[in-house]
C-alpha cells in the first residue's frame, strides 16, 4: 500500500508540479549545459509573476517542448538593446550571467500588462523576444 501511495504521489508531483526537463543546445550556457536534467516548478508563480533574473520554461504549443530563457523585462517596462547591452527604461541592466555577448540592437519595445521579455544567457546563439505570461510553464529551479 505504501508503495502504491508513493507511486501515486510521485506521479502527481513529477507530472503536474515539478516537471523534469532535459536541456538541448547551448543557448543558456554557461548557466545550463547541454544534456543536463533540470526541474520546472509549475507552482512557482501561483501568487505572483516572475521576477527579473528568473530562468523560466517557455512552452511552445504545449508543455512537452519548452525554451529555457531568462526574464529581463517585466510588464510595463520599456526594453531596448544597444550593441548587446540590455536597457530597461533607458538604464543598462547588469547581467553577470552573460559571458558571450552579441552586438544586437533592438529599438525600444514597451511590454504589455501581462508581457515579459526573455533572452538566453549565451548571446552568441540565443534568441530573444517578448511573450505573454501564459506562455510561462514555470520556474526552472535546479
Amino acid at each position: 500500500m505504501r508503495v502504491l501511495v508513493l507511486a501515486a504521489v510521485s506521479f502527481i508531483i513529477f507530472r503536474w508540479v515539478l516537471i523534469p526537463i532535459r536541456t538541448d543546445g547551448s543557448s543558456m550556457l554557461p548557466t545550463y549545459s547541454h544534456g543536463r536534467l533540470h526541474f520546472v516548478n509549475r507552482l512557482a508563480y501561483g501568487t505572483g509573476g516572475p521576477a527579473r533574473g528568473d530562468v523560466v520554461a517557455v512552452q511552445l504549443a504545449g508543455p512537452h517542448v519548452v525554451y529555457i530563457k531568462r526574464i529581463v523585462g517585466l510588464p510595463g517596462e520599456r526594453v531596448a538593446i544597444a550593441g548587446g547591452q540590455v536597457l530597461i527604461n533607458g538604464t543598462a541592466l547588469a547581467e553577470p550571467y552573460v559571458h558571450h555577448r552579441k552586438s544586437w540592437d533592438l529599438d525600444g519595445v514597451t511590454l504589455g500588462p501581462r508581457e515579459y521579455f526573455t533572452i538566453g544567457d549565451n548571446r552568441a546563439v540565443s534568441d530573444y523576444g517578448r511573450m505573454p505570461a501564459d506562455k510561462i510553464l514555470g520556474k526552472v529551479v535546479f
Partner: protein
Amino acid sequence: MQRIAAIVLAVVGLAIGAWFLLSPDDEGAAVRTRLQALADMVNRRTVDGLGPEARGAQLGAFFTEDVDVDLGKSAAPIHGRDTVIGMADRLQPRTSAFQLKFEDVGVAMVPGGETANVHLTAEFIRRSITTGEQTLDAREFTIGMRRVGGQWQIARVTAVDTLEK
C-alpha cells in the same frame, strides 16, 4: 486508513480511465494520425530507396493543391503543392540525417467536420553526417487541414513566433 487510501486511489484510477474512455474525438484522432503518418514518411525518405517522382507523389498526398506555407519574416511564403514538393526534394540531399517529430498536437474541429485547425510543436532533429553531432530545433506552428476525398490534407502552414521581437 489503508482502506480509505485504497478507495481514494481506486476512485482516482476509475475517474482517469473514464475520462479517457468517455471523451473520444475520432476526427481529432484521424487528424493526429495523418500528421504522424507525414512525419513517419519524411523520416523514412532517406532509406526507402524511392526515386524523386515516387517520393513526390507520396508527399503530395499530404497537401492540398493550393497549400500555403508561411514560415515567417525570414522566408518568402510558399504557395502550391508542386512548389512544396520541389522544395522538399531540393532539401533532401542536405537533410539525409534529418528527423521530424510533432509534439503537443492540439486539434480543433471546425463545425461541419471538413476542416480542422491544428496547433503543434515541430521538432527538427539533425545529425551531422561528418561529426555525428545532433542538434534540435523546435518551432510552433498552426496548421489548417481540410478533408479532400476522405483524406485529411494540409491546406495552410503558419509558423508562430513564440518570442515576438
